[in-house]
């Protein structure tokens, strides 16, 4: 019998006695509960799905929330691994440090249609409007939740939130007091260690400081040899939360990091460094009105090791005010100003011109949530207007209708427009074959890609322990980037980026949470996605309307959390990703298992096996470097909390 089937059978039998005990547990539960005093009863944690989905019930959009419990249960070691738990995201590991992550398709290492925020700080590079995932590291233990919204967030979040928004929210320092230390290593994990201490300065000020580092193992080439892409990353940070008055909270956080990702497996790795600082003031004037003022500074440096270097300094100030004008109108509005000082050191034949450019972004948004029929029908209308350095003004409106026929059900529909404004690569990039002879270049006429999205969704909580949601969408795209051949034979260079692709995509995202018993929770989702792109008239796109993307038609994720006797926990994550069309990557199943044990309140031991079903598998083939395969691995981790 195949190894993987053997493993599965063993696990099945491991679980079977638990199922048979389920009924018996219910009886002994009641008898033991009655032995407790009222005070003891009030100390027991209640399990139900509703506390997590309280906000979700209100949300008239396709939102999935990855909770701290989900992350802990899955055995994820890094932020991208944790993002796999959202079934409305396409997450593909490319090599040891690079990931292709997107929502609603158009996935690529350089995916540019997703806005990613960490505590409100946007983490994308204007070089190509994408995210360098190797430097987005957060201490996973300190993540409160990750909100994943699939669908255009342009009206609230601005441009580049075309297909979705990921918002990583960390815990307040009030909730992370004490020492936290962890250390782990495994078959493909040379090591990971983190240390965090949280305390309070006085009654009103709490803080935490952390230091962490990891050394992640390599992937392998398709011919079986090591890819030499192992890499290290270290970071440290500090957060402070100050309750200045009962109505005012000031949060101050900063971090610094330095790492050496090496996706190409070269002798000299990339050096990626950065530091950032965020200050946020939240004021709640009353139950009906509050505002938030946030300032952040983000500095990143990436030295590619061959002379090409990118230094980015971002200064952002953001204001948001929410006020309930009347019983029926809740208005949220705000303004934002951002400067991105983007400084590239070019190679002789490859670079961005000018090397250094200051990009300015000014925007304002307003949104009104109108209760047409109180507690039953709500209409939300909003828009964001933005001015950027490339295309001047962009307008992104959004209208949403939410119908709540019963307290446990919401049906919603939305129409939105969103844009992906040009990034440096679309306008300022040139690669030369020889001095004066360009072969790929951006174009000063490159305009924003646009999306008009039609969405329909349904969310229902049929019982206290089951919550289900379905979202469908039909996206109409225009002016998607194409690679237009040039006049010079024989290769028709220079290839110039144009806006020659249009088309539509559509799909459905299903998700649900089911608390079967007090000790067993299931959470998961399925996404169906199809894309239909074509060339606009006059376009001779060298990529043939593929929009440089590679997306699966089906995918699903199922997470299982089991609380076992004797302080053991058992986590399972199963995922299925359908084949990617071009470059072709076969479909695969991923199975991650975690066994956790807390022998005492302070110590936790974990054993995690990842990608169990295949010795090696490929998830995404990038344009460069060469295709890699992810291997099956196992690691152990010791955690102390006191």
């Amino acid at each position, binding site marked *: 019998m195949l190894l*993987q*089937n053997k493993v*599965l*059978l063993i*696990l*099945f039998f491991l*679980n*079977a006695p*638990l*199922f*048979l005990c*389920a*009924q018996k547990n*219910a*009886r002994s*539960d*009641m008898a033991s*509960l*009655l032995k*407790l*005093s*009222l*005070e003891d*009863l*009030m*100390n*027991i*944690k*209640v*399990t*139900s799905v509703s*506390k997590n989905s309280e906000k979700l019930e209100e949300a008239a959009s396709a939102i999935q929330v990855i909770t701290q419990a989900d992350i802990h249960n899955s055995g994820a070691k890094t932020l991208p691994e944790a993002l796999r738990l959202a079934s409305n995201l396409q997450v593909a590991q490319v090599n040891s440090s690079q990931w292709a992550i997107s929502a609603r398709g158009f996935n690529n290492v350089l995916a540019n249609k997703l806005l990613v925020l960490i505590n409100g700080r946007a983490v994308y590079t204007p070089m190509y409007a994408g995210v360098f995932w190797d430097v987005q590291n957060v201490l996973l233990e300190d993540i409160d939740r990750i909100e994943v919204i699939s669908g255009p967030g342009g009206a609230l979040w601005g441009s580049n939130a075309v297909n979705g928004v990921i918002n990583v929210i960390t815990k307040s320092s009030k909730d992370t007091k004490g020492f936290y230390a962890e250390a782990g290593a495994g078959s493909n994990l040379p090591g990971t260690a983190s240390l965090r201490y949280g305390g309070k300065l006085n009654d009103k000020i709490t803080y935490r400081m952390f230091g962490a580092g990891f050394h992640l193992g390599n992937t392998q080439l398709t011919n079986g040899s090591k890819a030499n892409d192992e890499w290290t990353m270290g970071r440290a940070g500090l957060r402070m939360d100050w309750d200045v008055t009962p109505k005012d909270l000031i949060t101050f956080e900063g971090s610094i990091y330095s790492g050496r990702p090496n996706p190409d497996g070269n002798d000299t790795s990339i050096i990626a460094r950065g530091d950032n600082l965020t200050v946020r003031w939240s004021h709640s004037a009353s139950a009906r009105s509050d505002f938030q003022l946030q300032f952040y500074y983000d500095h990143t440096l990436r030295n590619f090791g061959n002379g090409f270097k990118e230094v980015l300094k971002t200064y952002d100030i953001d204001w948001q005010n929410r006020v309930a004008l009347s019983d029926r109108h809740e208005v949220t509005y705000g303004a934002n100003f951002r400067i991105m000082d983007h400084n590239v050191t070019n190679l002789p034949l490859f670079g961005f011109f000018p090397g250094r450019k200051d990009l300015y972004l000014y925007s304002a948004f307003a949104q009104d949530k109108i209760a047409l029929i109180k507690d039953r029908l709500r209409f939300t209308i909003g828009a964001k207007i933005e001015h950027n350095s490339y295309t001047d003004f962009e307008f992104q409106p959004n209208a949403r209708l939410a119908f709540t026929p019963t307290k446990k059900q919401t049906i919603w529909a939305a129409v939105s427009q969103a844009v992906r404004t040009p990034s440096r690569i679309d306008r300022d990039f040139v690669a030369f074959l020889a001095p004066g002879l360009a072969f790929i270049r951006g174009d000063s006429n490159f305009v924003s890609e646009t999306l008009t999205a039609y969405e329909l969704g349904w969310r229902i909580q049929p*019982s*206290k*322990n*089951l919550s289900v949601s379905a979202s469908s969408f039909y996206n109409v795209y225009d002016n998607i980037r194409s690679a237009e051949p040039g006049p010079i034979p024989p290769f028709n260079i220079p290839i110039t980026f144009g806006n020659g692709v249009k088309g539509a995509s559509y799909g459905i995202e299903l998700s649900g949470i089911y*608390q*079967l*018993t*007090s000790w*067993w929770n*299931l959470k998961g989702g399925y996404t169906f996605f199809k894309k239909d792109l074509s060339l606009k008239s006059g376009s001779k796109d060298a990529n043939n309307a593929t929009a440089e993307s590679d997306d699966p038609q089906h995918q699903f994720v*199922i997470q*299982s959390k089991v609380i076992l006797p004797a302080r053991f926990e058992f986590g*399972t994550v*199963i995922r*299925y990703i359908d084949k990617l069309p071009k470059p072709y990557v076969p*479909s695969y*199943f991923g*199975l991650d298992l975690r066994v956790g044990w807390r022998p005492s309140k302070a110590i936790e031991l974990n054993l995690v096996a990842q990608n169990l*079903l295949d010795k090696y598998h490929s998830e995404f083939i990038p344009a460069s470097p060469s295709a890699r395969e992810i291997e099956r691995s196992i690691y152990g981790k010791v955690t102390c909390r006191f």
Partner: protein
Amino acid sequence: MGLKRLWFALMLCCFAVIVHAQPGEQEANLKAAFIYNFTKYIDWNQHDNANTFIIGVIGASPVIASLKEIAETNTVESKKIEIRVFDNPDQIEFCNILFIPETTPYPLSSILEKTNKGMLTISEEPEFARKGTAFNFVIKNGKLKFEANLKALGQADVKAGSQLLKLAIIVN
């Protein structure tokens, strides 16, 4: 080959769906335990002349099964516990405790107007204590707590001991 793996993988996680498991049993059991504990601190004055202690429930709820389990082997002031389920407000008869589940489709006012002295109302829906039930379960920080409406307790002419009230969130 892929299909076989799919079957095994799904079996791991979905097997117990076939096995009977009461959803939300811990919460239902917990609430039933609370209700039973309340009886130790409440004085029904003279309003409980019956030979049994009656807990009425208007509508369906997983708490009913938990209450029935308690009734099998426990008593209140040496009286056997009887569980009565009312399908609609018109069917409500005298009971020492009337439990109003969150899934009840009837407006609270139509239920409360059928209650008389000696009937302690307990609910599990946000705002219900403020709207007139004597006790109301709420979940705070993942733990079960309860609100108390002193005015409603007074109207039901039922006395709650101070040890109980000091654990409650007084709403009125």
